[in-house]
């Protein structure tokens, strides 16, 4: 139990994918203009991340390792991610109309979210069991979603402030993200 809690807290906070490892910055900066899109992207990415993990873990340990072709894992994982994204895009388009309207063209871009590939690569370390891998990906995905939602709300509030002209838009978003990252630096050492 303790081990799992350490993995969860590590992936969620200490090594948060966006604010501590700087993975997945493209959606973090690009899709957080509004709270709704940010929240939707976070939730769909969580879904994609977990599905990708469930598929790539057996792929890696049952096919790539026995055949000694682990150097192909990046290509293999990208293919899995693309497949999962295509499937979830189809599902969302056909059954979740409101969500599809919010996300629209951002949906396929989840394939190129490096956090997804990063989690897949980090979670297939040889010494992790399937349970630990799942806890790791759930932690990483939840951390991503929480950060996206908080940052979406933060950027909405920023639009109401009297920010000096040179800092409006992306600059102030980057400064805010920097301060959020500064806050997470305080967690260094937790779980070690």
């Amino acid at each position, binding site marked *: 139990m303790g081990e799992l809690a350490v993995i969860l807290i590590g992936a969620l906070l200490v090594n948060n994918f966006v604010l501590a490892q700087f993975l997945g910055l493209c959606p973090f900066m690009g899709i957080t203009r509004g709270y709704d899109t940010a929240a939707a992207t976070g939730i769909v990415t969580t879904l994609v991340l977990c599905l990708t993990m469930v598929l790539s873990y057996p792929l890696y340990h049952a096919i790539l390792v026995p055949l000694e072709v682990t150097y192909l894992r990046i290509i293999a994982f990208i293919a899995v991610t693309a497949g999962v994204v295509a499937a979830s895009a189809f599902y969302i388009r056909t059954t979740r109309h409101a969500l599809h309207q919010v996300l629209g063209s951002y949906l396929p871009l989840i394939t190129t979210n490096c956090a997804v590939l990063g989690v897949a690569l980090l979670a297939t370390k040889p010494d992790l069991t399937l349970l630990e891998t799942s806890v790791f990906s759930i932690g990483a995905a939840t951390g991503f979603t929480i950060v996206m939602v908080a940052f979406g709300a933060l950027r909405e509030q920023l639009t109401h402030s009297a920010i000096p002209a040179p800092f409006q838009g992306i600059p102030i978003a980057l400064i805010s993200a920097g301060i959020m990252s500064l*806050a997470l630096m305080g967690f260094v050492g937790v779980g070690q």
Partner: protein
Amino acid sequence: MVLSNQQIMGVFCAALVPGTAAMTWLWGWGVVWNLAILLCLCAVIEVLCKLLRQSPVTLTTFDVSTFVTAWLIALCLPPATPVLVLASAAVASIALAKHVFGGAGHSLFNPAMVGYAVALVSFPELLASWPGQAVDGYSGATLLSEFRYREGRTVEEFFDSQASAFSDQRFIALCFAAGGLVIWRLGLIAWRTSVGVLAGVTLCAMLGYDGGASTSYGSPYFHWYSGGLLLATFFVVTDPATHPRGHAQQWLFGILVGVVVFVIRAFGSYPDGIAFAVLFANSFTPLLNRYAERRKHTPEVEANRV
């Protein structure tokens, strides 16, 4: 009694005086050095930023909260900190955390804590030595980090070995609490955030308390008066610009700060987590505000949404 914003900030400064006097009495003039230099630096940066933003600089419109920010940073840093460290903290707080976000009242992150955190992660070794705690009576790590790395001693043994440092710390914390209680009685602070912080720390410390064995994380009482907890409880988390609106949200905000402070103190590498905890909770302030506004203004719109 209705006070203007300027006057409220003046009262904040006055309420910080007893604690500052206690620190100066126990730790020497280094405390006043920090304070004097930071007050000057922050005022200069404030004026420069105002000029850059082409807003009028007059004595009556001068933002007194600049002095509160400077004062809080001065109290967080160890006495007689080098000027360049003070300057970096001042620039980070006044320019980066306040004026870039649109000036007084618009900052999303507590300016004082941004300044302190920037200095802390930039100069960790320089800021780790505090007076009065080590055997030679001059400098050493803070009580919190001594406590964390106490090498198998039980809490009681540790208290005996550091008795004078503990009584100093307690005295300073009490002086800040006295100032804090005054501004609370005057109704100038959102007390829910303050009580939330104390509740969060107490709850966590009680869950982790084991009667004071060598692996203990410390009693709630120890956590209350060590580090800057009481100072932050009354003067930092109550910054009106950066705590959320709405009562439930303020409770949540305070408890979040308290829990994070305890987690960093008990498990993290930094001895005290006040600055990080406040900035962490500040990141969620807009989200909490969002829920506060939604419930207040648009319940029927909310109900109609899928």
